[in-house]
Each structure stands twice: as C-alpha cells, then as structure tokens.
C-alpha cells in the first residue's frame, strides 16, 4: 500500500497559489506548498501538482478549490468542492480554533474580515478599492528601503517610538514615509509606523463598523509579519493569534470543505489523479457573436481537448462543469 490517504485543498489567488494535503482522520496538514502565481494560474497549479507528486505517495480522496481561480483549478483537478475564499477561510479558522469570533485575513492583493458567531459566519467585508491595506504595499515599501520582507517584522519589533505615518492612501503614505526618513527617524521606528498605518487602514477600510470580539485569528501571507500582529494587538487591545498554517488557511479550508462534502454525500472523489501534472492545459477565449450580448467565452483545454467552458449568459458552449 504505502500510499498516504489525504484530502487536497488548492487556493489559487492572484499573488500566490497554495496547495495543502490534510490527513483524513486528524485534519492535520501533511504537506503544504506556497507558490507565486505570477499571472499564470494554470501553470502554477500544474507545477504545484508536480511538486506534491514528488513529495510523496498520496492517494487523494477528495479535492476542494478556492480563491479567485477556484473555477479554473476546480476544472483542472476535478474538484469535489469549489468554494469562495471567505467561506474557506472561515471554515479553516473554525477548524483551528472552534471558539474564533473574528478572522482577520490580509493577503497580497486583498484583505478581508470575517465575523463568526456561534460557529457560523455572521458578517464579512472585503477591501474594495484601496491597496493600502494589503501585502503588496508592504512588499513595495520593504523593497524601497532595501529590506528583505522576511526581516520586516523582526526589525519593526525593535522600534522604540513608532513614527506616525499619515495618509490613508498608499501614495500619500509613501510620500509621508520618505519625508519621515529624511527627518532622520530610525528604520525600525519607520517600519513599526508603517505597520501601524497599515493596521489603521485595514481597520478603517475593511473593519469599518464591525464589532471585533475575541478570539481573533490573524491569517494570510502578511500574518508572518510580527510587526503587523503587534500593531493589531495594540490597536484592538486584544490578543491576536496567528495559526501555524496562517499562509495556507484558504487551501486548508477548501480541503476541509471537500472532506465534509464527501462524507455527507458518501460520493467518491472526482479527482483526475496526478496525471494532471503531466498534461498540458491551455485556455482560449473569444467573444461569442451569436447574439448581441457578445459574451466573453473562456474555454479550458486539456491536451487539446475542451475540458470546460464558461462565460455565456445563455448556457451555450457550456461543456459539463457542474461543480458547485
């Protein structure tokens, strides 16, 4: 036998693509992958599957996908569950800590807040327009200061008097930061100030009008940054917990959802096997001109054969992809 049974969760986001395998019995994360999407979700998923296949012998008993590329990944892999990232994150947080009331998720390109009351999502919000509350802003600033993003948090923690960086918008925050730097503030103080500015932005954009209650979980790529965590704790006056798998919580949630779904229905997985890693996928899009709606149709092909198709209003061109 030798093969390890596992549920696969895949989170395809615009910045990163994460894959996790969890143990069917204990829900423990067996292995996790954090890859850069680099604008090529199809290639990244294929690469991820290759790496998973290299990492061990797995028998995948269920697949869940999430993230903005969930539909695409779902079709490629034969997912049993295709779920939006808010639900996936909430489910993952609940699995980690059943008493969780607030989930703060800050990723590379978006950030969200999820409020959970008695084990059910009661409210949520996503950032709408502004990049100031997301990871890419920190990335940019770290790069400008010549600091490795991984050291960001550690350095910020050394601050003694965090500077106050004004501006609720990235552009103004940046110019104000340059100004503060020229005034001679130390790097740790500036970084800590940046963390506080970002937390302020987050709380006033995404967390506006939401009642944040303990226990608070902080997840998403930015949760690696201790400086942000500390700034959050300071602003909220609450303890903020960062789960071990903070960076792959979406994928973890998707795997859990797949497990729940299959156990409830008793169905077998639709997973297409690791052969995916050896296939070539491409996508093809055109504007349908059969009626004045001019829908944009996207077709996914595997080894040249159409696998799935979506985008039409009338249901035309739709090749079976009834994943829900």
């Amino acid at each position, binding site marked *: 036998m030798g093969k390890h049974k596992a549920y696969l969760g895949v989170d395809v986001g615009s910045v990163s693509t994460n894959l996790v395998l969890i143990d069917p019995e204990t829900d423990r994360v067996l292995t996790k992958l954090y890859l850069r999407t680099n604008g090529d979700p199809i290639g990244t998923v294929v690469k991820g599957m290759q790496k998973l296949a290299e990492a061990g012998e797995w028998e995948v008993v269920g697949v869940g996908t999430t993230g903005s590329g969930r539909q695409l990944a779902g079709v490629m892999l034969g997912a049993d569950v295709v779920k939006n990232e808010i639900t996936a994150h909430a489910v993952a947080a609940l699995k980690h800590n059943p008493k969780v009331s607030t989930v703060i998720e800050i990723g590379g390109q978006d950030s969200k807040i999820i409020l959970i009351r008695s084990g059910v999502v009661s409210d949520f919000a996503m950032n*709408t327009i502004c990049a100031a509350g997301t990871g890419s802003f920190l990335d940019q600033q770290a790069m400008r200061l010549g600091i490795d993003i991984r050291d960001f948090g550690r350095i910020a923690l050394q601050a003694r008097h965090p500077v106050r960086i004004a*501006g*609720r*918008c990235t*552009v*103004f925050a940046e*110019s104000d930061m340059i100004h503060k730097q020229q005034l001679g503030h130390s790097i740790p103080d500036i970084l800590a100030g940046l963390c506080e500015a970002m937390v302020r932005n987050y709380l*006033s954009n995404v967390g*506006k*009008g939401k009642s944040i209650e303990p226990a608070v979980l902080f997840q998403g790529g930015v949760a690696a940054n201790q400086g942000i965590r500390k700034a959050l704790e300071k602003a909220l006056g609450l303890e903020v917990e960062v789960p071990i798998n903070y960076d792959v919580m979406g994928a973890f949630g998707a795997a859990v959802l797949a497990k729940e779904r299959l156990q409830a229905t008793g169905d077998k997985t639709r997973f297409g096997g690791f052969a995916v890693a050896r296939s070539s996928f491409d996508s093809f899009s055109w504007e349908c001109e059969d009626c004045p709606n001019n829908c944009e149709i996207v077709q996914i092909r595997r080894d040249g054969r159409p696998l799935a198709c979506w985008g039409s209003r009338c249901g035309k061109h739709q090749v079976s992809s009834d994943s829900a």
Partner: protein
Amino acid sequence: MGLTVGIPRALFYYQHAPFWSTFFEGLGLETVESPHTNKEILDLGSARAVDGCCLPLKVFLGHVLHLADRGIDTIFVPKIVSIVRREYICPYFLGLPDFARHYLPNHVRILDPVVDKRRWSWQWARSFVRFGSDLASFRQAVRAFSKAQQRQRDWEAKQLIEGHELPKNAVLLLGHRYLIEDRFFSGSIFDSFSKSGFHLVMAHQLPEPVLRMYARRLQKRMFWTSGRQSLGAMEYVADHIVGVVTLASFACGTDSLVSDLIQRRARNAGVPNIVLHLDEHTGAAGTITRLEAFIDMLQRRRTS
C-alpha cells in the same frame, strides 16, 4: 433649564449660523459649537462614515462625533429639505438626522426641526416655532424666531458686495458654501489669491433675486439650490470675470453634474476655469500647485 445644545460647525452652519445661535439664545438655551474643522475631526468622521458618502458629510459626522465625545448629549441637526420654493439641497440633507442618529450612542438626543420651503416658504416659521415651544414657551419661541430671522437677514445683507459693483479682475469662486467657507479646505485658495491681485467673488455675495433671474436662462430648471446659485452666478457675471474656480467634493452627486456644467459654460464663454476636486486624501500640496499654475496663467493673460 440647563440644556446645552451642541451645534456642529459643518454644512449649513456656514449659512444659517446667525439664525441658529440667536434662536437658541432667545429660547434661553446655551449652545456649544464644535471647533473649526481640523485633521482630527476629519479623521474621526471619515473613519466611521460609510464609504460612498461625500467629503462634507464625513466632516459633518466628525463634528457631530466630536461634540458627542465631549459629553454633549443634545445635538442640533436640522432636516433641511429645501430653503427655496421648488428646490432641494441634496438627498443627503433629507436623511441627515437619521444619518447622524445611526452613528451616535442612544443617549444622545438629536434636535431635528424640519426646514421645507418647497411648497410654502413660511413652513419653516411654523416648524421652528413648534420646535421652540417644545424647549421653551410658545411666546418665547415666536419672539426668538422673529429676532433670529432679523439677525439672519442683516447678516446676509452684509455678505453682498458693496455697491453691487464687481471688482476689477474678479475671479468667480463657485461651489457649496460649506466647502468654500470651511477654511480647512479653502484656506489655501484664499491665500493663493490674496497675493495675486485678483479678487475672489462668490455666489452668496451676489444678490439672490438676480441669481434666480439669470438661472432662468438654463434650458432646464436647476432644482438644487446651491447648483442653481452657482450656475446663475456664472450666467450673471460670465462676461465680467477673468476666471472661474470651482471647488467640488469627491463623491458629491450635485457637484459631479454642476461642476461639469460650469466648465462647459466657461469654455463656451472663453473664460479660463479650473475644477478642484477635494477628498480626504488630497494633500494641500497638489491643490496649491494646480491653483498656482492657474493663477500664473491668468496673470500672463492679463499682461499679454
């Protein structure tokens, strides 16, 4: 009576303050005004206010919250539906007391008399007397109202340009009065112009009946009072001014159309014009640079 009424220094404060303060004085009530708009008040408002709303509304909320934070538990937020027959201010004003109530703790009482002159211009007299009688006696309310009204009229008359004669090199400054007169936003404009040799003229310095008359030239009746005054002023003085500055607030529904109409009118009349959009992120720097460039251009035009 010991009741202290908080008056937020925002929105119609800038055009009805004399009336308001005299009225409450006449009722024997003490009033507290919030301080001039500052960064803290703006942040207070914009952190809480719903995303899509306009800058003045965020500022207003900041003032209201500031008063509440200071422990004032009676705040004056009139529901100003209309101040001129068949005209409106804007939808926000219709829901202003409800909007404020949503953000305030329950114990804070909002005084919200209705000003609605759409059909009957004396409606507000009845409304204020009724409202005043609840806080004091009927006689006091009547007396307070007439005194307040007199004070308001005198004050408005004093706003007009002396001799009804436009100064030379006049530049028309248009926009909502609560933006123009809030120096936190407009201060830099006045500063820039004070040194330039140009004179800023605003719609409220021109006689209202004349503005109304000139606004009739519009193909379609303008039903927002502020917009009608701006466009009326534009029609009235278009041939006698050297430039137009329009102050518009981001996300303001009326400004989005009115500022466009002003621009088109100015273009057709061949008058240089500039629209300055304000939002809470706008640093003074950006505005000043654009304004200075505009003033430079006006000066070059004058000399050439």
